[in-house]
């Protein structure tokens, strides 16, 4: 009530200073830029916004981005789950190294990822495959950079999955495929979905790995982010901002659905 209130007031002062600095940093790096982006995209009103994202080239880029991302995540779901399964349930020499290398696409700069793919699957390919400047190149690059997501979200769930549940099912006469379909896959599904959603969000915005290998041909291999880049170079910032906002909204919806699903899931577990 009296005296000795100074220490607490001092601590509060420190805390307020810290919070202020955090706030300024976050505002300068995230809040203001996003606000500016939203302001630019809507500066000409809704009709201008729609005009920008429905211009033939923008629309083609957006469609390609969505389609390529959708195909890529399906492939990721299948191969990512298989890879996670092999890394958890199988045993072979060099497994630890393979496990560590799964994260390579996260660690490797995206421009290097594109170059790496071009070295093997581009012009003068030693294996005789040349996908450079084709839509297949878009898919290949996206597969490379999103590889770790499904593997890394399924792996821990598989590790925790109780073997005895499968054994119980087998002892009740279920065949291996039935066990897989009825017992294992349903338990892995939330993790697969979460990996798929993260891959999808990443694929929507991918840029660096596509620059070298796709050739950025409008109406053919030009994805959304490359289109935005082009519009910035041409100084048509409203067009760039409009497509940016469109892609951002899709990514946020996907991640929002993911967090909703995972919250429901964790409530089920509890």
């Amino acid at each position: 009530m009296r005296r000795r209130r100074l220490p607490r007031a001092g601590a509060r002062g420190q805390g307020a200073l810290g919070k202020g600095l955090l706030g300024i940093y976050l505002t300068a790096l995230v809040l203001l830029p996003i606000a500016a982006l939203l302001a630019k995209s809507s500066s000409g009103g809704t009709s201008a916004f729609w005009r920008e994202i429905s211009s033939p080239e923008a629309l083609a880029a957006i469609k390609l981005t969505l389609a390529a991302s959708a195909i890529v995540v399906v492939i990721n779901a299948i191969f990512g789950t298989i890879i996670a399964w092999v890394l958890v349930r199988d045993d072979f020499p060099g497994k630890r190294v393979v496990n560590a290398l799964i994260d390579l696409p996260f660690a490797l700069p995206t421009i290097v990822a594109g170059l790496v793919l071009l070295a093997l699957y581009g012009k003068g390919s030693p294996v005789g495959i040349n996908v450079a400047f084709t839509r297949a190149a878009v898919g290949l690059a996206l597969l490379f950079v999103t590889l770790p997501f499904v593997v890394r979200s399924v792996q821990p769930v598989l590790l925790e999955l109780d073997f005895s549940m499968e054994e119980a099912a087998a002892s009740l006469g279920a065949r291996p495929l039935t066990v897989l379909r009825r017992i294992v896959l349903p338990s892995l599904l939330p993790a697969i979905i979460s990996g798929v959603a993260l891959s999808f969000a990443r694929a929507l915005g991918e840029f660096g790995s596509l620059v070298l290998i796709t050739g950025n041909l409008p109406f053919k291999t030009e994805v959304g982010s490359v289109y935005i880049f082009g519009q910035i170079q041409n100084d048509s910032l409203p067009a760039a901002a409009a497509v940016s906002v469109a892609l951002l909204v899709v990514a946020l919806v996907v991640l929002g659905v993911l967090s909703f699903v995972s919250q429901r899931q964790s409530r089920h577990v509890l």
Partner: protein
Amino acid sequence: MRSIALGYLALLLLAPVAMIFYRTFEHGLTPVWNSVTAPNAQHAFWLSLEIVAIAVPLNTAFGVGMALLLERGRFWGKGLLGVLIDLPFAISPVVVGLALVLVYGRTGWFGNWLAGHGIQVIFSVPGMVLATAVVSLPFVARETIPVLRELGTDSEQAAETLGASAWQTFWRVTLPGIRWGVVYGVVLTTARALGEFGAVSIVSGRIEGQTQTLPLYVQDRFENFDSTGAYTAAVVLALLALATLLAMNLLTRHTRRRTPV
């Protein structure tokens, strides 16, 4: 199963990465050495390091502070703040670059003010640091929050009852308790910062020998038909990525957890 998984990884991941090592060294060491010592390559390398040296400490301080605020604080809008700091992961690097230009560029919100004070952000190093910091912003907070939660508040409260100030408690009890989580976050931040391409590409203006980082240099060399130059720079970056993986693996032994994003 095993052959499907390993075959897929070999075709998508290992063979291409092995291939650039081969491509780099196929004409012997002399052209590689010449590429490494080219002045623009040297400049790009040091510029990349300079940007990392500024952006990573800033993001580390921010990430640890944010993690403390989100995990120990009680205030309205905490959930929203948690979403906000993860936002850079949902945004394309190109969009990050664009958004920064719209605020700090010549025609941006602060363009006039900054120009009036003789500060150039876009097309110079400050803008590149800013872009790098944004794209690698969430890592430290993300890795620190779960470790902080696991640490619990008991030992911090014990320090408080023993007379330690908030500052003493942080440095002597909290930070040592979360250090491996923070270090893991710093490794991920560094890897991302070093390799950032899209956002930096937009805000840098890509001026050779001035605002060209190592990833931008890779693209420049490739587009100028200097494939040895491009491959050499790419190999340097790939080696740094492999070192990152090694560091991550050594660290997971301390933190007992993985799944970075």
